[in-house]
């Protein structure tokens, strides 16, 4: 896929408020460098992330999605992150089967103190997205059918 | 009763019945935490001047990008400074309506449906029975009647809501309460410290108020449960099914009898209604209203 040289991927990040969200915050305040194009959505737990969130983000034209929660064993609600893991795993595998590039969906465990890891994850995902290019999954190809633009 | 004839709206945009006219919100009144009344006027000067409707008719209102929903015109055709409609926050379109501010543009198609049969109501005693937001269509008729007061005989109004905070159109209630020519009763299901009016559900209070059925017509509008319990009370008071009118609410999309969903038997509520007598409703093929 063609892309402009200065193209920067747009990311949706669903971050658990108990850990990764604070981790992202810390990354900001401690001036860790990471790409600025992540739109952060605070969720009460990674277990709150419905696969529909991921799909909706891709449908809306986000180039990639990051789901991030507490490390195994550290969930504020005991098991939310384990449940998230099953959901993310089948969603990602299934979407790959359909033809969504694996680079578009990344999940991570980032604690409140891991500002560095958060920056790394975002940097890495951004790098991966630059390889696969903009998300054109839901844009019309031939112009047949009802035309749609990326929603916002 | 004789319902007014069904006739198509005269106000089509570009000869396409599905195209809305653009209207501007001029004022918003928060009736209760979940219900607001919006005052609007058409953007097009000619239409603003020429538009006409009758009490009981409704319109299809567009929030562009969200969708369309039907609401009755809750202002009176006798007061044409602007138009009003009242919406409760219950779904996608009404949620969006509740986010609108003054100056926002909406779409309007209409007026659609039949209307309250003014000829039939003339020289009669009128008993209005309303509950909650159900006062909206009645209100159009009530002001219409007040503005032509000499054409009608006695007017009684029983209006109720769940609590004092749920009463809509408090400014109208104040005005009607002061009007010596109206017998006016408000009630709430549950009062609070400051409430001095009646307490009790509308059908019960109606039974206590006991308006005479002689030369009278009752016009009922409110939540379905209230309507269901009000008709038997009216029957007990001697009202015949022809003497009871109501407006029905159904899920609608097109508003003009084409899309199918407001169908009951061979009638379409949007096209043949929404105003029906209890006599008519009883003759419906099904009870799915």
């Amino acid at each position, binding site marked *: 896929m063609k892309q402009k040289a200065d193209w920067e991927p747009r990311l949706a990040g669903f971050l658990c408020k108990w850990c990764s969200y604070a981790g992202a915050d810390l990354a900001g305040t401690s001036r860790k460098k990471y790409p600025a194009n992540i739109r952060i959505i605070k969720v009460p737990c990674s277990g709150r992330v419905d696969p529909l969130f991921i799909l909706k983000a891709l449908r809306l034209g986000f180039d990639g999605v990051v789901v991030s929660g507490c490390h195994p064993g550290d969930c504020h609600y005991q098991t939310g992150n384990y449940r998230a893991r099953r959901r993310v795993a089948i969603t990602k595998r299934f979407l790959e089967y359909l033809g969504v590039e694996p680079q578009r969906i990344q999940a991570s465990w980032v604690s409140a103190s891991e500002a560095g890891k958060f920056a790394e994850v975002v940097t890495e995902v951004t790098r991966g997205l630059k390889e696969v290019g903009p998300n054109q999954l839901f844009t019309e190809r031939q112009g047949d059918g*009802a035309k*749609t*633009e*990326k*929603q*916002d | 009763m004789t319902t007014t004839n*069904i006739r*198509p709206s005269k106000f089509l*945009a*570009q*000869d*396409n*019945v*599905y*195209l*809305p006219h*653009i209207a*501007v919100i001029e004022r918003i009144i928060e009736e209760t935490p979940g219900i607001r009344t919006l005052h609007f006027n058409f*953007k097009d000067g000619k239409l603003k001047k020429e538009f006409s409707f009758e009490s009981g008719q409704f319109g299809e209102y*567009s*929030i*562009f*990008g*969200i*969708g*369309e929903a039907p609401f009755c015109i809750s202002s009176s055709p006798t007061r044409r400074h602007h138009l009003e409609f009242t919406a409760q926050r*219950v*779904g996608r379109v009404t949620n969006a309506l509740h986010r609108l501010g003054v100056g926002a*543009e909406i*779409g309007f198609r209409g007026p659609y449906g039949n209307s309250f049969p003014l000829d039939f109501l003339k020289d009669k005693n009128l008993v209005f029975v309303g509950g909650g937001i159900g006062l909206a269509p009645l209100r159009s008729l009530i002001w219409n009647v007040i503005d032509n007061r000499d054409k009608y005989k006695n007017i009684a109004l029983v209006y109720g809501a769940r609590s004092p905070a749920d009463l809509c159109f408090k400014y109208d209630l104040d005005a009607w309460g002061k009007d010596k020519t109206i017998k006016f009763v408000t009630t709430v299901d549950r009062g609070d410290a400051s409430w001095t009016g009646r307490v009790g559900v509308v059908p019960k209070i109606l039974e206590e108020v006991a308006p005479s059925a002689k030369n009278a017509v009752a016009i009922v509008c409110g*939540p*379905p449960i209230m309507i269901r319990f009000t008709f038997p009370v009216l029957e007990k008071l001697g009202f015949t099914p022809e003497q009871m009118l109501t407006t029905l*609410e*159904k*899920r609608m*999309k*097109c508003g*003009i*009898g*084409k*899309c*199918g*969903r407001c*169908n*009951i*038997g*061979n009638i379409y509520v949007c*096209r043949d209604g929404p105003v029906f007598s209890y006599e008519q409703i009883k003759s419906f*093929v*099904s009870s*799915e*209203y």
Partner: protein
Amino acid sequence: MTSKKVTKRDVIKLLNQWRQEFAVFVPSIESGVATMARWEGKDTSFLDWYRNTVIPPKANFLPPMEEMFRFRKDREGYNIELPPDGEKQLIFGIRPCDARALAIIDANFRDLYQDPYYLSRRNSAVLVGLGCTNPHDSCFCTSLGVSPGESADVDLMLTDIGDEFLLEPISAAGKELIARSRGLKEVTKDDETRAKEIKETSYNKVTRKINAEGIGAKLLAGFDDQDYWEKVAAKCISCGICTLLCPTCYCFDINDELTKQQGTRFRSWDSCAFPIYTKMPMENPRQEKWRRVRQKVCHKFGFYPTNFNVIACTGCGRCIRLCPVNWDITQVLESVPLIETKRGKASNTL
């Protein structure tokens, strides 16, 4: 004007002539689904397999999804923009049942308000009917006044008389179309006799029957028999196949979609089989399945005839063929209980 004929080999030439003037649609199989699709001028092999389409030709007039208008917001406020006018369609090979279906739903789209989208397509279209010679075993058109070989609802009617098609002008538009078509041959007496025989034969091939006589009154009499309707509805799965793919079902939904500075209002097929169809915030008059099944049957055979004097079914059999659980309307209509209620006696109009 009298009939003409064309050899099957020359149909391609005829279609190519018509293609100069119309967007020609012919039966096509796209990924295993028979539908009326745009003819690209290539071949007429559909003549070999065509019995009827899965997607009814109503889709050419009331598409599964269509743009009603776009709106754009600028400094002055909202502007509304209508989609461009559609092309003139020529539907080649429409079956008599489906042509009748269009005539039936015209009534709804003309009543009280003209539906601009449907009617503009309808008014500019030419229907070239093709008589059935091999009806499906699920077809029951003859019980509803449709003859598989004949149609008054098309502009031009074709009958397969072997190596040739007989072309019979039905409407003024059909006459004009014949008049300006080249390469047509004169018809002999034998051809006409043969066509007549073929029409009769196909009529007799339709063996599935219903008794449509007084069906509305019968349904109304049994309308409140909840036990009956629950039994009838038991195996229905409330999917939308029998309604969406019915040539006489026209219900639609309207929805908006918002993109950055502009949006579009679409309308799309809808079905009374879905609970959400009638769902209101507080209650739903047809939440229960048996009510929705009853609505479907009674609307087609009772309410629609009351309003428009015609049963909204042409016996095309799609609902039977395509139903995942073999819910069969003909069995249902035969089993309507013969009860005489106050209502049934009081009204014979329905």
